[in-house]
């Protein structure tokens, strides 16, 4: 663990792995809820957690080294289920990359249990980890100018669902009708960092 100062009011804590980042994120939220940590933003990412709005970042940086951070804690609440029609335009390409028949993609993807590692790109867009590393796929060489809302997509070690239509370079394997972001809903985001997620195959192509 390495804490890098970001300006005068923020710290970027760098971890050895995504799992460690998720574990530290959970620990930071626990401490904030307990009232022992005051911070405006806690932003987990691939291998870091950003803390913004700290009074004394250097003091926290010094203390962090002594913290005991338990591994990614089990979540008490149910996994969020996202029904998916595995009919994306890149399904054949992903099947080829994985070396499996096309219908195996749905089976493999819906058998995994995911966790929201972090969010970004657009409100409600979560970077979900959970697929074994052998299923990592590269982004498309040429990004699409418009990816439809509800597209279920893969890139690197992550699965994501586009909350709204936007340009994107991820490999599209399916579609869901679940609403990822609705600012009139509480909470607005279906997926927040740390949440458990399962994809459930529905319908047929």
């Amino acid at each position, binding site marked *: 663990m390495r804490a890098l100062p*970001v300006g005068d009011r923020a710290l970027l804590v760098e971890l050895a792995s995504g799992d460690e980042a998720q574990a530290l994120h959970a620990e930071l939220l626990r401490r904030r809820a307990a009232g022992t940590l005051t911070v405006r933003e806690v932003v987990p990412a691939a291998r870091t957690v950003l803390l913004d709005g700290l009074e004394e970042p250097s003091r926290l940086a010094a203390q962090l080294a002594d913290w005991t951070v338990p591994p990614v804690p089990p979540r008490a609440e149910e996994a969020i289920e996202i029904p998916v029609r595995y009919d994306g335009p890149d399904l054949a390409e992903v099947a080829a990359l994985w070396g499996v028949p096309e219908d195996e993609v749905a089976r493999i993807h819906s058998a995994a249990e995911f966790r929201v590692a972090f969010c*970004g790109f657009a409100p409600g867009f979560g970077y979900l980890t959970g697929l074994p590393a052998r299923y990592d796929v590269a982004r498309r060489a040429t990004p699409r100018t418009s990816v439809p809302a509800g597209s279920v997509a893969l890139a690197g070690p992550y699965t994501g669902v586009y909350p709204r239509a936007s340009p994107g370079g991820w490999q599209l394997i399916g579609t869901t009708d679940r609403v990822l972001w609705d600012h009139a809903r509480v909470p607005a985001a279906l997926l927040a960092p740390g949440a458990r997620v399962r994809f459930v195959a529905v319908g047929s192509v």
Partner: protein
Amino acid sequence: MTDRALAVVRAGALTTVQDLGRPGYAHLGVPRSGALDPPAAALVNRLVGNPPEAAVLETTLNGCALRPRSAVTVAVGGAPCAVTVGGRPAPWGAPVRVPGGTLLDIGPAQSGVRGYVAVSGGVAVEPVLGSRSTDLLSGLGPAPLTDGTVLPLGHPVGPHARVDAVPQPGPPAELVLRVTPGPRDDWFTATAVRTLVTRAYRVSTASNRIGLRTEGPALERSRTGELPSEGMVWGAVQVPPDGRPVVFLADHPTTGGYPVIAVVRPADLPAAAQAVPGTPVRFVAVRRR
């Protein structure tokens, strides 16, 4: 709609509703947003007797024209400009009474970029996650104003300020941004880090509420490969593959994958909102406090 409303007659190049923004949601991918020049927005609110959290209008370069349905007090600040009420010149940077049905015209910026218009009672569009701010990156909050938009107004809570003149910083002839290095200055050559804080840059025309883009010597990276996405702050100086530094402003993405070579002191960021394209930019290295 009641008569507490404001009709937009001329929306201008880019006029948005802004308040203090929506901090606390970066972990969901929601930018902070809010007025790009917070002291200017706070000042015009104070002048009309609004609380600090009231929503104002932020104009860009060529102002806007508005017609309130009932009498309101307004104040225009930020970028200096001509103000007229019903065709007659009115003071800038001071409370002005606008009778119902009368045209309030906010002229083009004489210098600077962003003007702020506070109306007594504040702009009362529906908040999203506790804020009425337009967020251009993610499309949260009200869309940028268009001709014919009608905005609801809140009820005034206090009397307007009684002042003859209030000091406001002028737009910068040269934008001086104090920076502390890191967190990813080690992704750049020593020459690149020196170049950033010694050479001249200029504000690029591609600047917007998301970032102040600059033109100048490209900063060379010392390592190749991709940086895994990480959290970003307002004021982060991110360096994309073209090597030209971008200073993140209010609507910046909450995570990003290009290395941040330095971070601008928050106190210097309001001036970045007012620097017109072509303004010289100097990044000055300062020690961490």
